[in-house]
């Protein structure tokens, strides 16, 4: 018996350690304080200070950040920027930022944040509001990208790169791309005749489904979260939007296996010539043109997402650049943010890293369009885009959307029920 007790205690300790250790270190978020007027608290400190700073971003896959930092450092010997590279996993980047902000780490001066994290970090009081002495001029930026960086009418970050959904279609089979959803569904018999699937997007239960469901709902004139920040998804418009997808699954216009599709599965199907229409991000363009396994190299075209009676409402991807309220050298941080979003830098992003610019006039730049032929289409997409819900509870919001939209697509729930549940879950997300 004695042994068994000892053993039980040991088992208990190890199990406890394994299950709980993951949660250690998370203090209570909050603070920040109400600053409806000017800047206060941490946000009012070190505004004029200059000196060395650190820039934090996820893995620099296409080597765009290092050359830029080198260029900055060459002309700012006393305000050098150190680049801290995070992992390439978005979740890990998010958690790393949270930990360092909670620890009020002053060496995370300027950070790169995903568009969907901006509201959360702003509400936690971690991002320097871009007003007063730290105001940022967004003239020339695409309005939808600015909206992703705005929380409660205050700008908390500067748009850095953007991304929007576009429609890939087989121009050999469909000479003119569909402008509306109904038109596209009307073309599905062409797919059938050629023994192909008609349309696919991203419908597996993950972030991509939130993107696609939001696009369907926004395109039909619905919203997920209203302008006042309150959920408003249980409307006839939203119902019509989600119903478009559900109906297409029922008709077989969206193949049944698309319920397991993320970006890559859809791309592979399209490149294998098995899909007539594909909703995906611009990265597919170059791959479909150059991949050895692509049989559609010269047979596909791109168009804005089909909408109700014009271009559809894409969801927005991309990243914003923001300044920590705990930074000790905010004047330098501000200059660096301006540098990282300047016309010249934006062009470099596009040429070097195929990252979509946030400045409208670059989409008309002849050099750029020659290199990235999808830019004009992408501009239409981003101009009509609606950001995913700007909510400080985004992780809960996306769960509410995914789980219920997925149930509707699979036919486990009626569209009515799914939207009622989604509305209730969004309400619960915002009142924890």
């Amino acid at each position, binding site marked *: *018996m004695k*042994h*068994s007790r000892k*053993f*039980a205690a040991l*088992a*208990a*300790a190890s*199990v*406890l*350690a*394994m*299950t*709980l*250790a*993951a*949660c*250690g*270190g*998370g203090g*209570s*978020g*909050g*603070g920040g*304080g*109400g*600053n*409806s007027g000017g800047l206060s608290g941490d946000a009012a400190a070190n505004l004029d200070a200059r000196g060395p700073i650190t820039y934090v971003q996820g893995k620099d896959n296409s080597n765009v950040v290092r050359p830029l930092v080198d260029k900055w450092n060459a002309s700012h010997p006393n305000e050098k920027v150190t680049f801290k590279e995070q992992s390439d996993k978005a979740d890990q980047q*998010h*958690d790393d930022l949270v930990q360092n902000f909670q620890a009020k780490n002053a060496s995370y001066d300027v950070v790169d944040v995903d568009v969907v994290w901006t509201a959360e970090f702003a*509400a*936690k*009081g971690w991002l320097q509001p871009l007003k007063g002495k730290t105001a940022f001029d967004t003239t020339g930026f695409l309005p939808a990208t600015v909206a992703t960086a705005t929380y*409660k009418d205050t700008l908390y970050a500067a748009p850095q790169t953007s991304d929007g959904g576009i429609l890939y279609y087989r121009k050999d089979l469909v000479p003119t791309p569909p402008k509306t959803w109904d038109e596209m569904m009307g073309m599905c018999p062409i797919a059938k005749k050629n023994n192909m699937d008609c349309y696919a997007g991203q419908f*597996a*239960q*993950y972030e991509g489904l939130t993107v696609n469901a939001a696009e369907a709902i926004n395109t039909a004139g619905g919203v997920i979260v209203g302008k006042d920040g309150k959920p408003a998804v249980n409307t006839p418009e939203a119902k019509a939007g989600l119903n478009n997808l559900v109906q297409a699954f029922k008709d077989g216009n969206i193949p*049944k*296996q698309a*319920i*397991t599709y993320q970006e890559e599965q859809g791309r592979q*199907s399209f490149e294998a010539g098995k899909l007539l229409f594909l909703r995906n991000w611009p990265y597919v363009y170059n791959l479909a043109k150059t991949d050895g396994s692509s049989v559609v190299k010269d047979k596909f075209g791109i168009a804005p997402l089909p909408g109700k009676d014009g271009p559809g409402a894409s969801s927005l991807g991309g990243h914003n650049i923001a300044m920590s309220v705990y930074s000790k050298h905010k004047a330098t941080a501000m200059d660096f943010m301006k540098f990282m979003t300047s016309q010249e830098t934006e062009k470099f992003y596009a040429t070097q890293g195929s990252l979509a610019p946030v400045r409208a006039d670059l989409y008309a730049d002849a050099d750029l369009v020659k290199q990235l032929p999808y830019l004009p289409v992408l501009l239409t997409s981003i101009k009509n885009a609606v950001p995913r819900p700007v909510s*400080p*509870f985004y*992780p*809960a919001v996306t*769960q*509410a959307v995914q*789980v*219920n939209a997925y*149930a509707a697509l*699979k036919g486990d729930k009626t569209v009515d029920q799914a939207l009622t*549940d989604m509305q*209730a*879950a969004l*309400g*619960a*997300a*915002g009142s*924890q």
Partner: protein
Amino acid sequence: MSMQVEPQTRRGKKGTGAGLENKEVGQDRKQKTQGKVALLLIVPSLIVLGIVIVYPVIDAIVMSLQKDAGLDPVTGSFVAGGFAGLYNYIHWIFEQCNTPNGQASCPAGTLGSQFWSATGTTFLLTVITVALETVIGFWMAIIMSRTFRGRSALRAAVLVPWAIPTAVTAKLWFFIFAFDGIANTLFHTSILWTGSEVPARTAIIIADVWKTTPFMALLILAGLQMIPDDVYEAAKVDGATAWQRFTQITLPLVKPALMVAILFRTLDALRMYDLPAIMTAGANGTTTLSILVVNQIRIGFNSAAALSTITFLIIFIVAFIFVRFLGANAVESATNSGKAK
């Protein structure tokens, strides 16, 4: 501790015939200094254990009694939630959520509504995977314990799935079970493996069994090799059939090792995270408790701490039942046989 010290003190004494008083005094002094040295040697590991285990555990329990930061409706900033009592625990166990209309049962699509289904999923996956792994592992162990050419090659080969990191395994099976993947091509089926509940769970079970059976097999193999050959020879002489030898000798004698192996696997399976997280992201009834905890961490730490504590209690109870009622003998006889050796 004292039990280990005793023989040394005795050995240290010059004559065993020394007076009783003397012996006690000497022992006392020795024990005192030895105790100090022992304490000094233990302290570093105690400190490390304190930092790595005790502090996070206590911190997590304290956190679980705090409310998650809420939003100030006017400023839109987060404000600390304050003391919550057992609210977080009630939230999970009774699936009660705060909604705009006050407390109500959690609507579908919130994490709070998934607690019991996640618990059910976790136990279902655990029972099925551990049962399969035990049976197949036993079979593999029996084969590996025989003497034949290439035995060591086989033993090494069997270990390969276990040596691959789980995340990599998960990604491999993710591709295998894709609609255009190997599984469907090979069997000329068009099953949506990750598209509905039963296939998704089956896929995860297959991947888990593939990955962890070798672990089971090795633990059982260790137990098998402790059984002396002469027992089998004696049984053969007495005319026992192969089946009788298996049920009358192998099973009872391997039981201690087997129980420990099952206990370890069960505890491990109850924490299952990587396979479902990567293969299905928790969709189609594959959300385990660990996935729920990780999802909740991104939404609110304090509530996640409560969920971790609940998960711990559940796992602890299972471990306790194993040790107390099923495996108590296993642990005792395992130590006894260890001593006898």
